[in-house]
């Protein structure tokens, strides 16, 4: 069971799916499950199919014991076990082994309670967190509100240099109200505070920790060895507060930077999980017996950027012509071996709880493109299109677009530039180029970083005051239904007006031994949002 249950996701919302899995896990019969589904209004055939799948998932009961080796795709002297200073996937894996956050993000990026049993606010500005009782650090100390205050305050310290500082500085007061209660006051209301608390850097460390040669957290594994750039070893935490977890005795984690070497190490049986593999390598993995590809659909994308503040590329008809010229299905098939999801020129992907499924999909339509091209008056002038391997797969995308453009008389002149220095010399500067955006934990963070009128990374320099006020309103809105409506409107605005073409959302691909069970996609990144450690077991 390495991929998302196809029958569960379209017909049931996630809360229902979770209930179903719980019932199946608790030993409910197929008849009971179907009865529950039918009560919810699902047809007999569909409910039969769904119930069968839920039972199949529950049949994989976790086993305890065994140890695995895991290779990520980067490793170096920057490796750290200081949650505040994490910068790469390798750090996220490590810190997820050793620490817990107050919350964690689930399969559609909804925050779920972890060390915080509850998080509540009446106005989205003053938040009260109730902490879980009886949680111990690896050194035996009990976790209290002081540890939480210390961990969160630390992120704001400019001397620490945490990448999460911009997110952390919205907290103007972090106060312990008792041993198990923390009050957080924000500068301005933000309904997404629990999301921020569930991101990688907001892990809880022990009050007063300054030495990070080893890790002392509350996580499922204790740090047995940490050598930056070499390897990290975690061993089972026997006092872990989640009953029955973790399943494995030991995890050894290191980085193999070379793509081919990582896949080879897996197929040779030396590692059990290889993070971040190339779509081209998936055939090799599938052809080998006893190995699977694990796909995590996420909100990461490579986008076409037309700067709206430059005369030529700012022409609304020209931008529309480009959007109609993207053959999304062909790109998905030819470049990504189908490991991608077709995008609709707006940045919220289908895994996100605020995704708008009712927005009409923009098709590949050379006729409409031709109409808009003619209206734009660009004519046969060569338009330079900057692409680089730095923005992953952008060169392939550019070539496919160039071919389609030629057929309608548009002359796209591809300038392939080196990856080194691309982000500082071309991105946000060239009138027509490509960007590459990593998945972000929330719609608010993504839209604020890349689409707000005054955002430094507003790629197409798109300015819309109505969008800005909607964004602010959505941020402080605690009513989920109202919030959803606002995000849906914003997606439509970006799709129609911004100078951004998002052909596809790219999947994260990992490869693993078929014996390794329990992997479920979490869209903050590959390897279960880098949190596989406490969730996997060896069959």
């Amino acid at each position, binding site marked *: 069971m390495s991929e998302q249950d196809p029958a569960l996701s379209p017909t049931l919302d996630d809360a229902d799916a979770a209930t179903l899995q719980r019932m199946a896990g608790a030993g409910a019969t197929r008849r009971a499950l179907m009865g529950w589904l039918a009560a919810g209004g699902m047809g007999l055939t569909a409910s039969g199919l769904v119930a069968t799948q839920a039972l199949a998932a529950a049949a994989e009961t976790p086993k305890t014991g065994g140890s695995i*080796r895991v*290779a990520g795709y980067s490793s*170096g*002297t*920057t*490796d*750290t076990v200081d949650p505040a*200073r994490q*910068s790469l996937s390798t750090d996220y894996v490590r810190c997820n082994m050793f620490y817990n956050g107050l919350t964690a993000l689930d399969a559609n990026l909804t925050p779920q309670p972890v060390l915080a049993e509850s998080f509540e606010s009446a106005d989205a500005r003053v938040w009260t967190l109730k902490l879980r009782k009886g949680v111990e650090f690896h050194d035996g100390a009990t976790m209290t509100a002081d540890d939480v205050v210390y961990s969160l305050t630390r992120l704001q310290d*400019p*001397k620490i*240099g945490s*990448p*999460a*500082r*911009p997110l952390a500085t919205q907290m103007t007061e972090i106060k312990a109200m008792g041993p198990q209660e923390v009050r957080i006051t924000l500068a301005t209301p933000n309904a997404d505070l629990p999301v921020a608390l569930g991101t990688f850097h907001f892990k809880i460390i022990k009050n007063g920790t300054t030495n*990070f*040669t080893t890790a002392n957290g509350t996580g499922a594994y204790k740090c047995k060895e940490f*050598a*930056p*750039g*070499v*390897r990290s070893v975690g061993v089972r935490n026997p006092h872990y507060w989640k009953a029955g977890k973790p399943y494995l005795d030991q995890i*050894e984690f*290191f*980085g*193999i*930077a*070379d793509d*081919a*070497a990582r896949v*080879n*190490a897996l*197929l*040779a*049986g*030396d*590692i059990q999980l290889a993070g971040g593999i190339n779509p081209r390598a998936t055939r090799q993995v599938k052809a080998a017996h006893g190995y699977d590809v694990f796909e995590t659909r996420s909100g990461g994308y490579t986008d076409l950027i037309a700067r709206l503040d430059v005369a030529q590329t700012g022409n609304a008809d020209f931008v529309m012509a480009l959007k109609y010229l993207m053959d999304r299905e062909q790109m998905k098939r030819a470049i990504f071996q189908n490991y991608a999801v077709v995008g609709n020129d707006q940045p919220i992907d289908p895994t996100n709880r605020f995704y708008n499924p009712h927005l009409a999909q923009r098709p590949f339509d050379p006729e409409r493109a031709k109409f808009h091209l003619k209206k734009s008056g660009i004519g046969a002038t060569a338009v330079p299109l900057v692409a680089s391997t730095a923005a992953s797969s952008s060169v392939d995308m550019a070539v496919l677009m160039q071919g389609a453009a030629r057929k309608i008389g548009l002359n796209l002149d591809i300038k392939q530039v080196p990856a080194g*220095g691309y982000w500082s010399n071309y991105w946000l500067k060239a009138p027509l180029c490509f960007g590459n955006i990593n998945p972000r934990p929330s719609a608010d963070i993504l839209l604020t970083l890349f689409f707000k009128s005054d955002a430094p990374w507003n790629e197409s320099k798109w300015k819309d005051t109505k969008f800005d006020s909607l964004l602010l309103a959505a941020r402080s809105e605690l009513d989920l239904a109202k919030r959803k409506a606002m995000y849906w409107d914003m997606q439509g605005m970006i799709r129609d007006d911004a100078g951004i073409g998002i052909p596809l959302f790219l999947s994260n691909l990992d490869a693993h031994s078929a014996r390794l069970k329990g992997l479920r996609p979490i869209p903050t990144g590959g390897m279960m949002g880098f949190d596989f450690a406490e969730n996997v077991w060896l069959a």
Partner: protein
Amino acid sequence: MAPLVRLLMARLAVSLLTLLIVSVLVFMATELLPGDVAQAVLGQSATPEAVAALRAVMHLDQPAWLRYLTWLGGLLTLHPGHSLVNDLPVAQLIGSRLPNSLLLAGLTALVAVPVALVLGITAAVWRGGAYDRIVGLLTVSAVSVPEFLVATLAVLVFAVQRHWLPSMFYEMPDRSAMQLLRAFALPVMTLSFVVIAQIARMTRAALINVLDSSYVEMAVLKGVRPLRLVLLHALPNALGPIVNAVALSVSFLLGGVIIVETIFNYPGLAKLMVDAVTTRDMPLVQACAMIFCTAYLLLVLLADVFAILSNPRLRHR
């Protein structure tokens, strides 16, 4: 032996001067690279205030010459400083990697040098024949095939398909001789490819040079047996260039094996230095540069001393 001692002292003094100059050059080169360690650590989130704050913590706001002198002062008092990136002592970072690099270089030399010498000497003795041509062809091929290809092919065949050897290096639960042998087999094999080829070609060329000289012809004429002729008459005079070739190869093995270290995930010094350069981690870059430079100078010095000792004409001058 007095002249030799004088030579040694002079060479050591020059070596120290060389090290000093190298440290200045490496420091200047690191300064010239775009970006600095604060930006490298912060990555995409490098806002101007964040960079400024971190620079102050790392003392990057001091003038370059002051930072260099601080580092040099530390080194002279045997305190090579802390890594700017992860704040671990440089000595500790190097200490965990240096033995690995020495072990890999040592094992490879142990395998490669004897094989190379035998190949080179035999090719020289039977020069022009079919054997010589085959050795020549093989060594040229081995030098021209890039290491990553050799390594990847070896992994595909021996690890992925046959499952005879591990595809990469990892800490074994017990370090028995058999385990070590298996773990090192592929990296050593890959490195040996290039090293054997280079030393063998050097040996052949040097030996042929001597074998063509008139004193060897004289020895042949007076009836010296072929084995004795090569080993006792010709080889001592060819040792100088051969030992130098070996020294160069071994110094390459110490610091220039980044590809093998990457593919086999071997925790050696080369990867440490590349990391350090990528993150502009000056104390670490400098420490690695000093180690590589010292090793190179020592090996070349050793080779020269050996060449002098092995050559009576140089020995008695």
